[in-house]
């Protein structure tokens, strides 16, 4: 008998081959981090000046850890789901032994792997090239990243519902891309925004996961004084709960609305 794992690996391997043959997607993924570093260096430097105890390097690395999956997972995967649906691949896969969730997860394997790989490289090169402080709570950093990726996979599945062609994915993904980048504190800290706006932004699907990541790294998600390893857990709980709630909601919505075949 095949198992969920063996089926996931078989599908993931095929999807990895496809990603490696998709030059546009690959180029975007590899060119993105250096471009972001150049683009974000200056704003992050100003931000660091406002928050004593937080380094430019740390802001840059955490910001990038949040931004990379936005494109590599969310955008890429939306396009991948749309492409597989359009070629009737999803329809054909559903006739086999793999379950719906395995098909969606299998398609996500290369995007998620690439995001994780880029994150590791980023942290590694950050440790070497920038004067990085060690994360206060590495568990929360990893947890935050994992939850961020999970919620983005769900958002990609949902975005594919309203996307007819691979080309139009550039437009349909824009709202989530923009809102998440500016609303989750990846580029601008939420504390620098008007209170009411910040309160709304804190409820966005990607915000709790990214704030967990920040909290894990700096020991504070904003301007509050940093706490130690033990102290971060108390702050993390509401963020964890909200992130998990969003993932559950995205899963439910995907189960209900995901389109496995093109519209006629």
């Amino acid at each position, binding site marked *: 008998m095949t198992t969920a794992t063996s089926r996931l*690996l078989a599908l993931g391997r095929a999807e990895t081959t496809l990603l490696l043959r998709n030059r546009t997607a690959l180029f975007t993924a590899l060119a993105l981090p250096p471009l972001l570093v150049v683009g974000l260096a200056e704003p992050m430097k100003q931000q660091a000046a406002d928050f004593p105890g937080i380094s430019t390097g740390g802001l840059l690395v955490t910001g990038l850890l949040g931004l990379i999956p936005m494109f590599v997972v969310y955008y890429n995967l939306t396009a991948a789901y749309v492409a597989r649906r359009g070629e009737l691949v999803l329809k054909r896969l559903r006739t086999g*032994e793999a379950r719906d969730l395995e098909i969606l997860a299998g398609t996500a394997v290369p995007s998620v792997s690439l995001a994780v790989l880029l994150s590791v490289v980023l942290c590694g090169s950050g440790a070497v090239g920038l004067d990085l402080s060690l994360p206060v709570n590495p568990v929360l950093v990893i947890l935050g990243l994992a939850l961020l990726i999970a919620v983005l996979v769900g958002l990609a599945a949902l975005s594919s519902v309203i996307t007819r062609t691979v080309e139009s994915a550039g437009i349909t993904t824009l709202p989530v891309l923009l809102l998440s980048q500016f609303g989750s504190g990846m580029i601008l800290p939420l504390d620098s925004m008007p209170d009411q706006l910040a309160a709304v932004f804190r409820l966005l699907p990607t915000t709790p996961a990214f704030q967990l990541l920040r909290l894990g790294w700096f020991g504070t998600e904003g301007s509050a004084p940093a706490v130690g390893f033990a102290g971060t857990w108390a702050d993390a709980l509401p963020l964890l709960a909200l992130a998990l709630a969003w993932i559950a909601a995205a899963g439910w919505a995907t189960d209900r609305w995901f389109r496995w075949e093109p519209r006629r």
Partner: protein
Amino acid sequence: MDTSRTEPPVIEVTGLHRHYGPAGSGGFDAVRGLDLTVRRGELFALLGTNGAGKTSTMELIEGLAAPTEGRIRVLGHDPYRERTAVRPRIGIMLQEGGFPSELTVAETGRAWAGMTTGARPVDEALDLVGLLHRRTVRVKQLSGGERRRLDLALALLGRPEVLFLDEPSTGLDPEARAATWRLVRELRAQGTTVLLTTHYLEEAEELADRLAIMHGGRIVTEGTVAEVIAGRPSRIAFELPERSGRFETVALPALPGAEVTAEGRRITVRTPTLQSTLTELLGWAARHEVPLGALDARSASLEEAFLAVASTPSTPEPTGAVR
């Protein structure tokens, strides 16, 4: 040994309904009360006009969707609710299924094999459908017929006990179609149960142990080819000469039991007894020296049965009003 009497049927469908769209009269009933039994080792063909509900029925039996009403058992299990028990033992070829265009034939097979219990070697499956020489070619470079054969190869990968083929030879050239028929016959000889849909009547005539003709979401006729044809009239067609000169007053003889229709000089005779009616007709023509132009006499065929079914209105019935 004949085990068909002791063994439960491989596919058993009773009272099947499939409704699309909103409940009530707003939607559409694609399948409207269908019963079907396929025994082990049998090749059953589902025929029907476009829109008769063949693919809708197939999808339900394959377990791709839950029926609105009715009971389905495949190998003794509900194919939708108990898919884990059923899927590893069946192979499905959709009417329209796809593969990533940037993967090669072999890569596609390998991925599929990783998701198939007891998969045979990929090359063996490709060889069965004559695609082994194309193994390193990307799917996007395959012809339509080659894609259909790749689809068939993947359906065969897990050595299925039950094979579902939805229009397997559509888009194939005559040679590839003959090869597919040969393969399907071999599989059946090895004991595979096959449920196939087709709109090539000769395909059903050639392959099927039993067949059913669907129309308007129901099975209208069912049985072996001989049974389906039985009761259908044979047909004699010919053209009478111009009504002038010595043919001015020519009149057909009485043909007992036959039904004669005339369309200008073109005459069609439908008869349950082809030989006696034809003897009568030809004797009359000889006695009166009447030349019968474009004379054509044929026994009842599946085509005849099919057209008779297809020409009846499909009794549109108000949704959900009946039961």
